[in-house]
């Protein structure tokens, strides 16, 4: 059993704050992704769990054991580095069994476990080679093999796919997911790639400026971002944010935005009723706006600015009122720039944010 409990971590480098204040519980066997832009403290957090960074404050518990003061080798962790950090002066086999040797595992057991792990990662025929003779993808597999051969309680991965080309990355992403299912180690995975995070993570912790902004499943993070930052960081194209005003009308809560108005679900009325008459930010994802060529009730008039076919769908930039919005539409919808269209925001998918703080308000739809 190896749940991880991070309690009030803080780390500074001189005047630079890498981790402001971070607490997080990771369940045994969970695949947790730390996601954020560069400089948000995600790698520092991972390195702190590994024991490669000394913290200013806070405690790290792994499997109920306080490991804060333990060296990396005594924490029951294994790590895959962004640069792979495969030892260039050793053959693949010696790389893979390095940790077992350091632990004094008997030779026969080393061989058995190395063979087993090599099979799992499909590098059995590379064991006699030197890393210089391997491709980037193969080196990456060696790095992963070297980590999981230890049967670690906790597997840490620091942007392991970022040095691979796009096709290989897609392939390895699926491989890592399969591997996690088969090995079952609690995994903490750092990335700045939101697609990687959404596809791999049981839960995703979105970080910004040294703190966790939101932690939840891919669906939670995507559908109900906790604030503007999460909404814009996750999703490509990102969530649209348009300013609006709340108003009560006919016993319903209505938001006036983008030169039109949308009636909000009743669930929101109770929690947001007292905000009526106030400014608000409307967050809506591009795929939750319906586009029609003909006028319809409750639709907002808009003008098409740009149409970009991107394969699976068309990405449209439209102007509604004074706001620019990104909308995705099916490829068979025939629209031209400067054309007039009508938008219908799916009221159930609207995420309202406070105009000042950018924090989401109201109950999750």
């Amino acid at each position, binding site marked *: 059993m190896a749940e991880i409990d991070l309690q009030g971590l803080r780390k500074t480098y001189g005047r630079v704050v890498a981790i402001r204040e971070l607490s997080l519980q990771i369940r045994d066997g969970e695949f947790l992704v730390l996601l954020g832009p560069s400089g948000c403290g995600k790698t520092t957090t991972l390195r702190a769990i*590994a*024991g*490669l960074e000394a913290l200013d404050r806070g405690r790290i518990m792994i499997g109920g054991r306080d490991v804060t003061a333990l*060296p*990396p*080798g*005594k924490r029951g*962790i*294994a*790590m895959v*580095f962004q*640069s792979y*950090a495969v*030892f*260039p*002066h050793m053959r693949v086999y010696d790389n893979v069994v*390095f*940790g077992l040797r*350091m*632990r004094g595992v008997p030779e026969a057991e080393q061989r058995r476990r190395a063979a087993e792990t090599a099979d799992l990662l499909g590098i059995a025929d590379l064991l006699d080679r030197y890393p210089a003779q391997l491709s980037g993808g193969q080196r990456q597999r060696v790095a992963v093999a*070297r980590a999981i051969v*230890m049967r670690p309680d906790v597997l*840490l991965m620091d942007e392991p796919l970022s040095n691979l080309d796009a096709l290989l990355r897609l392939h390895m992403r699926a491989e890592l997911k399969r591997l996690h299912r088969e090995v079952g180690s609690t995994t903490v995975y750092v990335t700045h790639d939101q697609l990687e995070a959404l596809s791999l993570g049981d839960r995703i912790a979105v970080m910004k400026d040294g703190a966790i902004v939101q932690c939840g499943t891919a669906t939670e993070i995507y559908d109900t971002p906790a604030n503007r930052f999460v909404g814009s960081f996750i999703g490509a194209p990102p969530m649209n944010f348009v300013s609006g005003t709340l108003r009560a009308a006919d016993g319903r809560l209505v938001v006036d935005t983008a030169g039109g108005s949308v009636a909000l679900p009743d669930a929101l009325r109770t929690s947001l009723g007292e905000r009526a008459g106030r400014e608000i930010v409307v967050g809506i994802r591009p795929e939750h706006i319906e586009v029609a060529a003909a006028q319809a009730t409750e639709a907002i008039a808009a003008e098409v600015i740009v149409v970009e076919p991107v394969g699976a769908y068309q990405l449209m930039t439209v102007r509604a009122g004074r706001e620019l919005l990104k909308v995705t539409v099916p490829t068979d919808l025939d629209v031209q720039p400067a054309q007039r269209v009508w938008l219908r925001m799916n009221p159930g998918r609207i995420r309202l944010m406070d105009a000042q703080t950018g924090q989401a308000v109201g109950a999750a739809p």
Partner: protein
Amino acid sequence: MTLRRLGLYSAALVVGAWVALPLVLITLAAFTPRDLLYQWPRRLWPEAFTLDTLLFFTRSAGVLRATWNSVFVASMTIGLSFLIAAPTGYALARYRFRGRDALQLAILATKMFPATVLSIPLAVAFIRWGLYDTLVGVAIVHTALSIPFVTVIVVSVFLGISFELEEAAMTLGSSRAQAFLRVTLPMALPGLAAAGIFTFVLSWNEVFAATILTLDNRTLPALIINSVVAAGAPLHYRFAGGFFMVVPALVIIFLIRRYLLTLWGVTVR
């Protein structure tokens, strides 16, 4: 061939000849029989070769002992300078600490003072400490001379080895020392060996301090200089001595040329 290439190659030829020509002439002279050496006009390519000149040199009084002295001093210099410069270089490469830049500058600053200026105080101090005319004394001075080089080289060697490799070893159960010994050191070894050999050449060739600080315990260059300047050694002795001095350095530099280039920040592939 374009004009540009022609110019480049001619320039290379001139520079090469500038270095190689004296070496070639010394080598030829070292294998020329004594009587031919004194002929005038002398032919550029001698009509006979002999080992007698070299044998005469090696059998001259004190040469073998001076050679041994030189090897002893050079080995000791390697030992001492690595003892000091290797940890310094590692620290400069791996850690950021207060005064790091100042230290780096201070190491190079030792090169600011000409040895000539230091020679008298140095000799006086060595007499007082009982180090005058000892091989240890010469080795200490050579160590001081080579530390800047060794430090710079060691820094670049360790900078070339990613710290992540050591960290990876640590996550796999090594202590910091084990990580260094099992991962960084084996990778650094060729570069460090090159630095050691370079130090050997530095000490082997150093003549000024060795001459000033010794009387009876001469190193080879000091002995040769003394024989030539003070005793007016004959021409064939000079050539043979020159050849004898230059060969080890030449062979060694040839063997480690690839490292020397990378050490000075030029990568050759």
